[in-house]
């Protein structure tokens, strides 16, 4: 039995088999800019099932937020499809999309910027209830706001405060309450803990997991922080330059990374143990992420990959299964990582 087993999760690859809540198929989101076309998302397919958390991790500019925004149709797909609750929403008009915004909610990184500074906490939380016409009169709305405050662990008297009177963690709780208001099928959490103090990050992660257990929520959890994604997710995907390069359960990705980029990412994460740090051998990647305007031919990671071979410039590797439920987009998946770790 693996020491990695979790009390609330079966070992190996068995995500809770709920129905598919959201699905992307070969999604491309390209942005025309004066410097050329930015291929922010360039062929991403994924599936999120009810009650699970899909983690998205990757470096800055890899396309995580754009993928999240596509699920709310806050960006227009260049090609590919977006399906939510069984319906293809790719071509929906702005009018119809308003209904989608109730089905899919989003929580942003900076709770300061995502809340209207002029609105009280109570009005902020009531806003989606009004927009989506979810509660009858003022009294019912007030009760619902109080219920939402309770759910996210905020005192009811905070309803009369303004965002600047709250701490960062409290503001993020307001953001979560707003997202819960419409009882969405899916909540996209885009770096929800990145701007919070270390001691408050754990509070928010526990809150999100508790709410998920109680309300059977479905999350897409986006973060830079691999350890946080590992902790929060049932399945996770690693992005690089607009593509998913590896996906699987956190245990698979963390313990048996099959893509050289994942292996390098894992080896770069500092661990809060000086003895471990002193003995660690890092895989230091050279150079920077190439421009998404002009991604490398063949494998996109080849310009930084310590295991790149001539074939890698010619063939664009597909995301292929390396074990049940575990996929990697590398021509030499597994072998390349073994070679890297041995050298």
């Amino acid at each position, binding site marked *: 039995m693996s020491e990695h087993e979790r009390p609330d999760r079966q070992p190996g690859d068995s995500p809770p088999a709920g129905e598919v809540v959201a699905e992307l198929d070969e999604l491309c989101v390209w942005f025309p800019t004066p410097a050329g076309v930015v291929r922010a998302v360039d062929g991403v397919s994924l599936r999120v099932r009810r009650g699970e958390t899909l983690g998205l991790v990757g470096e800055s500019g890899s396309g995580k937020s754009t993928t999240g925004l596509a699920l709310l149709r806050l960006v227009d797909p260049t090609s590919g499809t977006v399906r939510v609750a069984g319906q293809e929403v790719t071509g929906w008009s702005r009018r119809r999309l308003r209904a989608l915004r109730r089905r899919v909610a989003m929580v942003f990184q900076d709770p300061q910027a995502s809340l209207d500074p002029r609105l009280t906490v109570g009005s902020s939380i009531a806003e989606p209830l009004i927009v989506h016409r979810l509660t009858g009169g003022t009294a019912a709305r007030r009760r619902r706001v109080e219920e939402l405050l309770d759910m996210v662990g905020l005192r009811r008297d905070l309803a009369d405060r303004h965002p600047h009177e709250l701490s960062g963690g409290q503001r993020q709780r307001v953001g979560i309450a707003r997202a819960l208001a419409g009882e969405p099928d899916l909540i996209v959490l885009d770096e929800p803990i990145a701007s919070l103090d270390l001691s408050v990050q754990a509070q928010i*992660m526990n809150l999100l997991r508790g709410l998920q257990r109680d309300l059977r929520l479905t999350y897409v959890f986006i973060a830079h922080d691999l350890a946080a994604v590992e902790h929060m997710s049932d399945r996770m995907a690693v992005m690089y330059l607009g593509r998913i390069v590896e996906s699987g359960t956190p245990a698979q990705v963390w313990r048996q990374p099959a893509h050289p980029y994942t292996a390098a990412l894992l080896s770069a994460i500092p661990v809060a143990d000086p003895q471990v740090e002193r003995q660690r051998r890092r895989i230091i990647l050279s150079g920077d992420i190439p421009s998404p305007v002009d991604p490398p031919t063949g494998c996109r990671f080849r310009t930084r990959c310590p295991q790149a071979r001539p074939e890698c410039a010619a063939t664009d590797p597909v995301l292929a299964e390396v074990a049940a439920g575990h996929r990697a987009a590398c021509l030499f998946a597994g072998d390349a990582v073994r070679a890297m770790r041995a050298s």
Partner: protein
Amino acid sequence: MSDAAVLAVTDLTVTIGTRRGPARAVAGVDWSVRAGETLALVGESGSGKSMSVLAATGLAPRAARVTGQVRLLGTDFTASSPDRRRRMRGRHVGFVFQDPMTSLNPVLTVGRQVAEAGEEHLGLTRRAARARAVELLDLVGIPSAAQRVDAYPHQFSGGMRQRVVIAMALACEPDLLIADEPTTALDVTTQAQIVELVADLQRRLGTAVVWITHDLGVVAGIADTVAVMYAGRILEQGPVDAVFGQPAHPYTTALLAARPDPAAGGGDLVTIAGAPPSPLALPAGCAFWPRCPVRGDARCEHELPPLRPVSTRHHVRTFYPQHADGRAGHE
């Protein structure tokens, strides 16, 4: 305090006048760093990390009142004239901040900026300074430095810009490098490059480094000694192995436990209730008391615990030092 210290601060206190009253940003902080050694200042946002190094190097904002003693290379820095302080800083201290663009001028070439740092403080000719700029850009790992020397900051990525800032900081051959969250805005793979670079330069040049971060993992990798700050005070301080291996303050213990640990399984994380206090309204006793999982007794609430040794170089500010097994004990 050892005379070999490159920078030593004693009882450093910084109070900033604000519209809502005086904010005590730093309160009675002592630390020192020697040649070739790295001191890490770690703590959450607003704990006084930046303000303590700014005050120590004479860069506190005008509204700040700074008291205490600072010795830079054996000289009483606090008692020196502003002019002498500026010269000493320019000659002996290099700075790297979180956002490289705060240190870079967008309309000058990177070569010019690195060269200027050397010209001014080492009295190099323009030509020699340019050659030195190429050398330094090469040293910090800018590929084809001789060509890139005429590039502008916007033509570089975030990681490359931070390398340029490090080259500028090194241009005056400083005895002390102050790095305030130099990798916080960077991706982990780039962070690993920068950490490696600074460690390597330090080995070769013997520079003393004060590295500010909120990332305990980074501290574990770079520090010889560490000071854990909270609400303007040091709560725990000592060799990095002692502080991480046998944390004695309930705050340090809780902070180390609050991070998800992929090796430990996926149960709920240990949390610290509440949030850090405002510097405008600090509690009377131990500033951590309102959030402390130990919460010893009324004394914690009303009396400031002194910073006391738990072993020779390991100090902690609590009435209830934790034992190595995590139990709380009485002093």
